[in-house]
C-alpha cells in the first residue's frame, strides 16, 4: 500500500507540469519488475465517455507500456448507478471507474467499497470545495475527472443584443426580460421535459441562492430541520410555477429533448435555457458556429444580494477495494495520470470545458467558450455556492418527475414541494441518517 514510485511524465508534457510532480518523477517508462499488469477501466457510454477512455488508455500506455488497460463501458444515468452498486456489492467492479461525486458517492458506501487515496500526492493540489465531495470522515476516495460546471441559465447573446436587454441579477429583472422577449415574438424560456432530468434546474440551480440566504440550510436539511415546503427553498418551486404560468415556454416543452434545448438556445430559437453549463460541450460539437452566441448567468434570486452561481463539481475516478496487489498499484498510476496535465488535456479535448478544474495541477486552455468565461467571473468574485447534492447526502429519486408536474401545471409549487419533502424521507432512512 506504500506510495509507489511515480512515473515520469512524457517529456513534452513535463514542461507544463508543476514542480511538485516533476520533482518526484522517477526514471524511465519501464516499471521496476517489468511484469505486465492488466487492469480494467469502466466508462459510461453516454456522450464522449468511450472516446475519452480510448484516448486516455493510448496516452497512458505511452508512459506505462507495461500496464495493459482494458476498457469496459456501461449505460450512465440511473441504470448505470444501479449497475455500479450491483458490481460493488458482488465484487465485480472494474479496477478504475468513473462515478458521481457528492450525495451519489455517499450512497455507494465508500468506506467499505473504495480504496482510500488520501496518501496520494495529487490530493494536495485539489481545490478546497472538491475535497469533501469525494471524502468521508475516514478517507478521500476520488480524483476529479472533467471540469466543474454551473446550473443556471444559458442565454442567446444575439437576441439580448437585438432587444437591448441586460443580464438580470434579480428574479423581477429576469421576468421583465422574459416579457420583453415574449412580446417580441420569441420563446423566452426553453424547457425540455422529454429528458425529464432537465426539468429540475429551476430547483437545483437555485440552491446557490437558498444557501446565500441561509448558510446553514444544507446542514439543517440533512438533520431534518429544513424543508422545501418552507421559504426560502419553496421559492425555487414557486419560480418554476410562475415561469410556466407566464406562458414563456416553447410550444413543445413537454416532448423536447436536451439536444433540442441546446439547439434552440444556440441558434436563437429561444432566449433562456435553465440547464447545466456543461451543455456548451454538446453545443460546440453539434453547432460549432454558434458556440460564441451562448452566454451564462445564474438563476437570479429575489434580491440581487442573494444571487449566486450554483456549482456542480466534476465527477471522479475511483478504485474499488476489491482491486489489490500490483493491480492496485497500476490502478493508482492510472488515476494519477487522469489528474496530470496530460490527463486534463484529454479531458477537455473531447469535452469543451464548462467551468474551472478541480485541481491546481491543470489549467484551462485560453479559448474556452463565452459561457465558461461568464461563469468564471462569478467564481472569481466568490459569488458561487456548491449545489445541494454536494453539501447534503439527501436527494430524493423523484424530483425530476415532481418538477415536470410543477412545470407543466399538473400540480402547484406547494404540492410539488410537499411531495418532494416526502420523497426524500425514504432516502434519508436508507442512508440511516439521524433525525429521520
Amino acid at each position, binding site marked *: 500500500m506504500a506510495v509507489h514510485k511515480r512515473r515520469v511524465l512524457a517529456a513534452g508534457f513535463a514542461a507544463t507540469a508543476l514542480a511538485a510532480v516533476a520533482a518526484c518523477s522517477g526514471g524511465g517508462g519501464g516499471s521496476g519488475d517489468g511484469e505486465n499488469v492488466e487492469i480494467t477501466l469502466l466508462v459510461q457510454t*453516454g*456522450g464522449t465517455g468511450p472516446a475519452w477512455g480510448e484516448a486516455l488508455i493510448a496516452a497512458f500506455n505511452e508512459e506505462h507500456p507495461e500496464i495493459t488497460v482494458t476498457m*469496459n*463501458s*456501461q449505460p*450512465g444515468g440511473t441504470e448505470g448507478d444501479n449497475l455500479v452498486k450491483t458490481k460493488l456489492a458482488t465484487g*465485480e467492479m472494474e479496477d478504475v471507474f468513473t462515478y458521481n461525486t457528492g450525495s451519489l458517492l455517499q450512497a455507494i458506501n465508500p468506506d467499505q467499497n473504495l480504496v482510500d487515496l488520501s496518501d496520494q500526492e495529487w490530493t494536495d493540489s485539489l481545490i478546497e470545495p472538491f475535497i469533501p465531495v469525494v471524502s468521508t470522515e475516514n478517507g478521500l476516495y476520488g480524483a476529479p475527472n472533467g471540469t466543474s460546471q454551473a446550473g443556471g441559465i444559458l442565454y442567446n447573446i444575439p437576441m439580448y443584443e437585438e432587444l437591448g436587454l441586460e443580464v438580470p441579477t434579480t428574479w423581477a429583472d429576469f421576468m421583465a426580460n422574459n416579457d420583453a422577449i415574449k412580446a417580441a415574438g420569441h420563446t423566452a424560456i426553453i424547457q425540455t421535459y422529454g429528458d425529464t432530468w432537465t426539468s429540475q434546474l429551476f430547483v437545483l440551480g437555485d440552491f446557490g441562492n437558498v444557501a446565500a440566504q441561509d448558510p446553514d440550510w444544507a446542514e439543517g436539511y440533512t438533520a431534518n430541520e429544513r424543508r422545501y415546503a418552507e421559504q426560502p427553498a419553496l421559492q425555487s418551486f414557486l419560480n418554476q410555477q410562475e415561469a410556466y404560468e407566464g406562458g414563456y415556454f416553447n410550444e413543445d416543452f413537454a416532448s423536447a429533448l436536451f*439536444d433540442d434545448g441546446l439547439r434552440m438556445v444556440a441558434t436563437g430559437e429561444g432566449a433562456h435555457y435553465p440547464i447545466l453549463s456543461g451543455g456548451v460541450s454538446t453545443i460546440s460539437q453539434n453547432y460549432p458556429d454558434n458556440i460564441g452566441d451562448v452566454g451564462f448567468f445564474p438563476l437570479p434570486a429575489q434580491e440581487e444580494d442573494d444571487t449566486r452561481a450554483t456549482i456542480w463539481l466534476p465527477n471522479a475516478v475511483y478504485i474499488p477495494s476489491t482491486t489489490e496487489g500490483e493491480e492496485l498499484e497500476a490502478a493508482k498510476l492510472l488515476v494519477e495520470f487522469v489528474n496530470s496535465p496530460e490527463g486534463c488535456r484529454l479531458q477537455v479535448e473531447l469535452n469543451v470545458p464548462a467551468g474551472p478544474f478541480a485541481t491546481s495541477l491543470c489549467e484551462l486552455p485560453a479559448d474556452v467558450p463565452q459561457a465558461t468565461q461568464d461563469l468564471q467571473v462569478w467564481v472569481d468574485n466568490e459569488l458561487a455556492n456548491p449545489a445541494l447534492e454536494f453539501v447534503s447526502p439527501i436527494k430524493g429519486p423523484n424530483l425530476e418527475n415532481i418538477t415536470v408536474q410543477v412545470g407543466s401545471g399538473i400540480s402547484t409549487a406547494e404540492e410539488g414541494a410537499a411531495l418532494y419533502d416526502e420523497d426524500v424521507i425514504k432516502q434519508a432512512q436508507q442512508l440511516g441518517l439521524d433525525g429521520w
Partner: protein
Amino acid sequence: MRRRAKIRSVVVGTIAILLSVIVFIVPFAFIFLMAGKTPAEASLFGFSLPTEWALWENITEVLTIRNGLVVRAFINSTVITVLSVTLMVIFAAMVGYVLQRRRSRWNPTVNFLVLAGLIVPPAVVPTIWVMQALGIFKTIPGMIFIQATFGLSFCVLLFRAFVSTIPKELDEAATIDGAGPLRVFFGVVAPLLRPAMVTVVVVQAVNVFNDFTGPLYFLPGDENATVQLTLYNFQSQTLNQWNLLFTDILLITIPPLVMYIFFNRQIVAGMTSGAVKG
C-alpha cells in the same frame, strides 16, 4: 354465390391490405427511411425518401463503431439465443411431457412453480451471488443458463398443452416394443412435438435476442456486449445521430425477421395443435 364470395374476398382483402399498410408497414418503412438518411435530415423526423441515400454509410458506421462492438454483439446474441433456446426446448419438453402424462402428487407443486416462474420477477443480486459461487458470472455459458431458466415456464405451459393432443397409445406401443423412456420420448414423442417446438423456438428466440436487462446485469463487460445494449448505447449519445440509432434498430430486427419468415408456415401448425387446449 361463389361469385359473391369471391368479390367479397377481394373487397375485404383490399381494405385489410390498405389498413395493414398504414398500421404495420408504415412504422417499419419509417425505421428503414430514417436509417437511410443523413444526420441532419434524420433529425427532422419526416416520413419522406432521403434526398441522399446514406444507408450503406450508416450501416458501415454502425458496424465499425468502437472496433466493431455491434458485430461482436451480434455474435454473442446469436450464440446465447441459439444455445439457450435449445436447452429450454429440450428441458421444458421433457417436463411438459411427464407433467401431462403422469398423474402424481408432484403435479400441483410443479404447476404452481411453473406459474410462479411466469409471475415472479427474478432477483438480481442473489442470482449474481449464486452465479459467482458457480463461477459462471460474466460468462456466455452463465448467460445461456440464465436465459434458459427464465424461459422455462412459458415453454412448459405450451408443451404440456400440446402433449395432450398426442395419443397416449403411441408411447405405450413403443414401450411394449421394448423401448426405454428415453427412446420413447426422443424417438416417438419428440418428433410429434415438432410444430410446438417451432412455436416455442420462434417466441423464445425473439425474447432472448431482444432481452436488455438480463445481459445488462448478468453479462457485463464490452467483450460480452449484446445487441439490445448497443441500442441503448446509441440512445444515450448526446450527439444528433438519429440515423445511426435507427440503422441499429433496423440491423438488429433483421435476424428475428428472417427467422420468422423461415418458420412462418410451421408456427400456425404448431399453434393449431397445441397452445389452445389450455
